[in-house]
């Protein structure tokens, strides 16, 4: 991250001239009930509208409604905004807004030394302190000595602002987050209109609530502008990003995935997107988004379990629509047998895995990258299939689209890997024009003359897609090994060899149909290649950039295609003395690269349910290059 508040206090003292910053990291933290996710996304929206680049990290508890005031009930939303090319939500917040003691307790250690902490003193009651496990109030001892502390009785000020309203105190206090948002918007030179409008739209049915929220928002904003503001707090002007022109919006990985799949169905000219799924955190939101796209020809089917979900989706593909299923690790585990059938019967299918921390139930709301083995190797028999991974929320759109292309062109199931972080994080997106999106229309077999269910396209090795309803193509398919031409059951030894080889070759061949691996940062040769995949993109990208600023010969390669690997990857990696593979698992891609290229790749592994910090990767780079 670029120049930030220095930790010397003068910065936060003196006249009320706005100071200038390139980028700032704010974390809003409070109780699950305090509306921190809403506050965060509204701030995101305003900053985005104002032309900042943005990266966010929502982090909320596993429990539906954890008891109020407890540390495990804390909900937080971190946003990094400012001038260009921000790819992470930031290692250390510059500003922490803590609406209760638990939030303070959980978050303050992450804050950078000298950072600003804003607390609602009104919430620091004996009871809340106790719930957070504080014997004495951290506001009174030296717990927060390393930071700038701004104590405000936000609760009281919110109540004051809402005096006129008829709201009960309990309800009025609900607007604390809006008051705080207003103050933060002021402090970082943002507008507040978009939020105001949004609130009014959202609460049209409850005008008094709408009014209360807007009033609180304006009051918080005004508070900053007025003399009420303590002398030692000042406003900031944060740099804008110079991003390419066009229409923008913020998008989560989940939304981008849903739309990418839909765009894929459209690009393939398929009549319907059939989405069979079973709820599971953090994959469920994809079902929710798609369930609202019926008008676009999306049929969502909530099955009795993950097995039924994938089986129904395979059935749908067999019928001639785009079958898609999605889940998270434990649910994907249940789909393994059916994935094998899709491989064997060679039907198109997209399987989306929103990875979460494992093994077993693990930590459902936390991100991890430990399902790569499962995706590439986790089936009985030789059952190869393409595996893709998205690197950022917006990247999910392109990857989903690509997954559909491969599935339909090669008549194969395709796994798309996402994770809990990508699914929920939002970032600005330059919205593409539909007419600029790729097209890859499929053709269903219709000609009975010379039809054989397993006669392959000599180029793609794909078998024909012959769907029920087509006169003259009546045939039988199944999971027993089948004749390489007729598809009839065959126990013939040579036929099994031929079919096994064909399935392998078909997937291998895809390497010639995907782009060569490009370098994200740096040169195609050098001392150290840092190779990543998935949501580690941001921290790796930043770490390599900084390392190069330090003059180190480091390059960043980020893989979208994990199986088959890009055809030029081996050669590229050969151009480096060392290879470092940061992963949020115990070392999976590193295993694949080592065996694929006998390349001396080493892992940098972290499984804490939290994203890498840029500094962690930078340190590892230093360590490798000092040896």
């Amino acid at each position, binding site marked *: 991250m670029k120049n930030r508040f220095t930790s010397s206090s003068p910065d936060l003292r003196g006249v009320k001239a706005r100071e200038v910053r390139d980028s700032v990291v704010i974390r809003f933290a409070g109780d699950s009930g305090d509306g921190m996710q809403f506050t965060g996304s509204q701030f995101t929206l305003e900053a985005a509208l104002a032309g900042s680049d943005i990266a966010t990290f929502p982090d909320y508890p596993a429990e539906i409604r954890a008891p109020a005031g407890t540390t495990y009930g804390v909900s937080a939303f971190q946003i990094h905004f400012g001038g260009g090319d921000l790819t992470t939500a930031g290692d250390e917040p510059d500003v922490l807004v803590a609406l209760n003691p638990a939030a303070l307790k959980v978050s303050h250690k992450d804050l950078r030394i000298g950072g600003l902490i804003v607390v609602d003193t009104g919430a620091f009651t004996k009871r809340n302190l106790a719930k957070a496990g504080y014997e004495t109030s951290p506001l009174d001892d030296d717990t927060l000595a390393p930071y700038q502390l701004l104590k405000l009785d936000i609760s009281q000020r919110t109540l004051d602002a809402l005096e006129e309203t008829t709201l009960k105190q309990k309800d009025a206090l609900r607007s604390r987050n809006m008051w705080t948002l207003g103050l933060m918007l002021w402090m970082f030179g943002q507008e507040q209109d978009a939020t105001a409008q949004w609130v009014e739209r959202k609460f049209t049915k409850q005008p008094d609530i709408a009014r209360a929220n807007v009033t609180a928002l304006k009051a918080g904003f005004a508070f900053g502008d007025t003399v009420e503001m303590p002398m030692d707090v000042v406003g900031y002007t944060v740099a804008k990003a110079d991003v390419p*022109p066009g229409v923008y919006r913020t998008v989560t990985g989940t939304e981008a995935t849903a739309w990418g799949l*839909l765009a894929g169905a*459209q690009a393939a000219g398929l009549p319907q997107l059939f989405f069979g799924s079973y709820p599971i955190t953090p994959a469920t939101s994809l079902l929710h988004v798609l369930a609202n796209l019926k008008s676009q*020809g999306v049929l969502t089917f909530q099955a009795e379990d993950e097995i039924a979900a994938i089986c129904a989706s395979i*059935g*749908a593909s067999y019928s001639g629509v785009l079958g898609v299923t999605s889940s998270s690790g434990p649910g994907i585990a249940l789909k393994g047998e059916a994935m094998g059938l899709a491989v064997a019967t060679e039907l198109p299918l997209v399987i989306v895995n929103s990875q979460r921390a494992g093994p077993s139930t693990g930590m459902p709301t936390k991100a991890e990258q430990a399902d790569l083995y499962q995706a590439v190797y986790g089936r009985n028999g030789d059952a190869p299939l393409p595996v893709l991974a998205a690197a950022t929320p917006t990247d999910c759109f392109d990857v989903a689209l690509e997954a559909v292309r491969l599935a339909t062109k090669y008549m194969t199931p395709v796994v798309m890997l996402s994770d809990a972080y990508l699914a929920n994080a939002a970032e600005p997106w330059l919205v593409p024009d*539909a007419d600029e999106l790729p097209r890859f229309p499929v053709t269903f077999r219709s000609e009975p003359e010379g039809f054989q269910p397993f006669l392959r396209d000599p180029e793609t090795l794909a078998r024909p897609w012959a769907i*029920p309803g087509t006169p003259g193509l009546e045939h039988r398919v199944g999971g027993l090994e089948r004749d390489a031409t007729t598809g009839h059951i065959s126990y013939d030894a040579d036929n099994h060899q031929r079919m096994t080889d064909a399935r392998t070759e078909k997937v291998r061949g895809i390497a010639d149909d995907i782009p060569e691996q490009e370098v994200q940062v740096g040169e195609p040769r050098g001392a150290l290649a840092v190779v990543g995949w998935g949501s580690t993109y941001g921290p790796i990208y930043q770490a390599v950039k900084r390392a190069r600023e330090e003059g180190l010969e480091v390059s960043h390669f980020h893989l979208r295609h994990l199986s088959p690997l890009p055809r030029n990857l081996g050669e590229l990696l050969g151009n480096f003395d060392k290879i470092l593979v940061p992963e949020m698992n115990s070392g999976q891609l590193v295993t694949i690269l080592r065996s694929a290229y006998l390349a001396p790749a080493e892992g940098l592994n972290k499984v804490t349910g939290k994203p890498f910090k840029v500094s962690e990767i930078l340190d590892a780079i230093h360590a490798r290059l000092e040896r």
Partner: protein
Amino acid sequence: MIAPNETAPKAKDYASDQEVRWCPGCGDYAILKAMQKTLADLAVERERTVFVSGIGCAARFPYYISTYGFHTIHGRAPAFATGIKLANPGLDVWVITGDGDGLSIGGNHMLHVLRRNVDLQVVLFNNEIYGLTKGQYSPTSKRGTRSPSTPQGSLELPVAPCALALGAGGRFVARSIDTMQPHLVDVLKRAHAHRGASFVEIFQNCLVFNDGVHSAFTEKSVAPEAQLHVEHGKPLLFGRDRTKGLRVTPGTLEVEVVSLGENGVTEADILVHDEKSRTLAAMLVDLKPPDFPVAIGVLYCDPMPSYEQEVQQQLAQEGAKPATEAEMDAVLRGGRTWEVT
């Protein structure tokens, strides 16, 4: 396909070119014959018909029918069939399964396909054994069944397929017997005519691993006394000269077997079959020899709108159709956007 100008199709038109590979003498042959006759009588279009199965001897069925066929994985056929039907409601879908495939590993999908009431026909071949894996006992095997996995006899209470189907909320529940050709064909036609999920249990003989398991009521000699052929609106009579019947024991919900003419019993006392009564159906599926005859025929039929119809309606209400570019743009730009110039 059956060309329009073609003469009425024959059973053989529905036979595939594949050699049938069941054990000689297996009850499955008779069922295959009945099915091909049914399809011919109904003149179904081959290209619009799909047979879906799991794994088992029974599940080999689709290979022998000249329509589309999908031999899937063990126990999951109802789920595949649901996807097939939802994606193309115009298709005529049959699910062929066995007592192991459909009630052991596949019990849950069976429950949910019936509950959802997807318009398809589930035909379960009940031979009370795992045939393909060489004769282990199944969830429908009688207690005490000796099999390679239960050399001292099985200890589990068997499940009655039709009782389960009712418990799951199935709207069409029927029974027939492999060897009763005309009856079987009629039942299959009724199942096909029913809109929604229809469940048909066929008592099937596994010559090799469970020979004669149903003979207590299927044997010609005992059939009249041991079978109760139910017909909607008709009294529940049975016996060689139909002089036996079922009567509600006054003041209870239990039934008893009575003989016409004996101590004043007349046909008026006999319970009349009502396909729409769940309680009646629940009673019928439980009847067992030696005290009671086995109920055969359409035990329950009370149609409701089928799932895929409802889904289609909801999609229609939402104006579903493949997204145009314009709509795609609308989706992508829906919600809050801003322009950078």
